[in-house]
């Protein structure tokens, strides 16, 4: 598990890698309600969904352990989605605690990533994970700003796909952290040259942390506003 404690003690991230993750090897970590949802999913969707839930529940468990000095069984709370994901419980006391959390989930291929924090100290968290891929030029032009595209086109060809994937992930994570998702067009989001600053419509936006990583052909981003 990766615990992102570099800049914000109260944001916790977790990573699930399906090949090596023992935590979600079976369905025992799912709450009864989650188990019901899981059974309705197609076979193709089940693995992605499970990885996202696995990372999310581990991140929430870490936060609860750190902030509230309690780690309830992971089957006692559940992540719901169908819009921005949130975490709740059938136990009203725990549900009240969980209502103070803000959560983001992402999955791609063999990776599930999650970050959770507290609503009272952040303005939102966002994560994204994507496999590094080859982009069509027209796709890159459609989501990079003019400055980003210039940097992209001046790079060595071998570095371009990683760079474009990284920028996509940062933009996607920022959109999630704002709660707007794809409603915020990626071209409105401009990433600084050092990949540590974000501007929206030309105005610099404050961030608590922006963590990016490249691992086994994947780019992962965790962002806390």
């Amino acid at each position, binding site marked *: 598990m990766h615990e992102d404690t570099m800049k914000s003690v109260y944001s916790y991230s977790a990573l699930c890698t399906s090949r090596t993750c023992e935590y979600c090897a079976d369905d025992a970590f799912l709450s009864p309600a989650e188990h019901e949802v899981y059974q309705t999913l*197609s076979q193709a*969707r089940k693995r*992605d969904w499970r990885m996202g839930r696995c990372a999310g529940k581990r991140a929430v468990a870490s936060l609860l352990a750190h902030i509230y000095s309690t780690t309830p069984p992971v089957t006692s709370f559940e992540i719901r989605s169908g819009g921005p994901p949130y975490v709740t419980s059938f136990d009203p006391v725990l549900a009240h605690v969980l209502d103070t959390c803000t959560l983001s989930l992402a*999955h*791609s291929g063999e990776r599930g990533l999650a970050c959770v924090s507290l609503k009272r100290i952040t303005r939102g968290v966002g994560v*994204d994970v*994507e496999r590094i*891929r080859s*982009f*069509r030029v*027209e*796709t890159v032009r*459609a*989501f990079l700003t003019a400055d980003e595209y210039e940097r992209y086109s001046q790079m060595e060809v071998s570095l371009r796909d990683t760079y474009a994937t990284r920028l*996509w992930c940062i933009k*996607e994570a920022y959109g999630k952290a704002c709660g707007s998702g*794809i*409603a*915020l*067009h*990626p071209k409105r989001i401009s990433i600084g040259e050092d990949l540590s600053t974000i501007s929206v419509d030309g105005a610099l936006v404050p961030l608590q942390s922006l963590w990016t990583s490249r691992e086994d052909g994947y780019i992962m981003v965790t962002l806390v506003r």
Partner: protein
Amino acid sequence: MEHDHAIETEVFRIIRETLHAPDMPLSSALSLAQLSSDSIQLFELLTAFERAYNTKTTYEDIVAMRTVGDIVSYVTHLKHHDA
């Protein structure tokens, strides 16, 4: 607005080409989430439709789309608007 069969066939072709899934079973009822859970693929789909129909789709349009049938309706609307 009723679906034009020719437009539906064309939309299905663009989806299959863009997602590199020539045998993908498609129907108007299929949700975009079922189509692909990959946000980049969905964005590539958007740019493919923009190229095919020489239009700029707004994000408000995209957000309103939930199913493949919504895309067909949107393209049908574009074509009738152009006519």
